[in-house]
C-alpha cells in the first residue's frame, strides 16, 4: 500500500467516526413521547422502588451506571427541577444492580431519564437533558 492510499484509508475512518459522532449527538438531549412496547404493554415504573420513593405528582427516573461520566451532573440537574415543583422527586436506578431494566426501558446510553406522572398537568421532559426523557404511561404507586 502506498502512502497516499494509507492516508486515504485514515481519512475514511475519520469520516466514519465523524458521521457516528453527529448521529450520537443528534440522539442525545431530545425528548420523545413514549410508545408502548412491541407486545402492546406500556412500561410501568411502579415496581422499581417502594411507593415512598415516588413523588406524589411525578417522578423523574434516572438510569445510571458506575462508569457514567455525565450521570452526576444530570442528577444534580434533575434534583433542581424536582426542587422547583411540589410533589416531584428524582428516583435513581443503577443498572449495575438491575440489569434487566436496560432492555425493558430500551436504555442505550446513560444517563437516561424518563418521567412518570400521575395524571395531571406536568411536563418536565423538555427540561431534563442530556438524556432522552420519555413519558411512560402514568403509574400510581399503590
Amino acid at each position, binding site marked *: 500500500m502506498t502512502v497516499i492510499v494509507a492516508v486515504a484509508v485514515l481519512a475514511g475512518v475519520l469520516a466514519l*467516526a*465523524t458521521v457516528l459522532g453527529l448521529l450520537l449527538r443528534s440522539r442525545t438531549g431530545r425528548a420523545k413521547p413514549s410508545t408502548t412496547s412491541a407486545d402492546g404493554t406500556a412500561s410501568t415504573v411502579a415496581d422499581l422502588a417502594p411507593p415512598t420513593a415516588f413523588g406524589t405528582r411525578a417522578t423523574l427516573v434516572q438510569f445510571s*451506571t458506575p*462508569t457514567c461520566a*455525565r*450521570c452526576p451532573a444530570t442528577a444534580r440537574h434533575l434534583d433542581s427541577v424536582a426542587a422547583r415543583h411540589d410533589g416531584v422527586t428524582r428516583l435513581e436506578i443503577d443498572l449495575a444492580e438491575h440489569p434487566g431494566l436496560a432492555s425493558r426501558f430500551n436504555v442505550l*446510553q446513560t444517563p437516561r431519564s424518563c418521567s412518570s406522572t400521575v395524571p395531571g398537568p406536568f411536563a418536565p421532559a423538555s427540561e431534563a437533558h442530556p438524556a432522552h426523557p420519555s413519558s411512560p404511561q402514568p403509574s400510581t404507586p399503590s
Partner: protein
Amino acid sequence: MTTTNDTDRGIDPRSPRFGAAITTVLLAVTIVLTLIPETWVAGIVLLAVIVALFAVGGIAGIRRHPYGALFRRVVRPRLAPPAELEAPEPPTFAQQVGLFVTAVALLLALLGVPYAAPIGAAVALVAAFLNAVFDVCIGCLLYVWLVRAGVFRPRRGVA
C-alpha cells in the same frame, strides 16, 4: 455510583479529552504506518507505546496518566477553572477499553494476522476521536450495552 465535586477525587473533565486528542493523533499515525509495509515495524512500535499508555491509565488510574500530568502543567494554567469536576472512574474505564482493543490488535499483529494492527488502531481511533471531538462518553454507552448483552450479573442479586 460516581460522584463529583469531591475535590480530592474529582478530575478536570477536560483532561481526559486532552488525552483522547493526543491518542487520536497517535492512533492515526499508527494506522498509516502499519498500512505501509516499509513502515510496519515503526507502526507496531508506536502501537506498543499506545498500549503501554492505556495500561498506565487503565490500571494505575486516569490520574496517574502522563497526559494528565502534561495537561496540568501545560494546558490547565491557560484555562479557566473547570465548572465542575468529574469522577475518575469513567475515564479510567475508557482507558481499559482502549487497552483491551489495542492490546488485542498488537498481539494479533505480532502473531501475523494481516491488518490486525490498522484495524484495531482504527477501532480505538473512532472511540478516542468521538471522545475528543464530540465529547462522547464511551463508558456511558459501552457499560449499558454490556449490561444488555448480559455480560454483567446484578450486583446485589436483585434483577
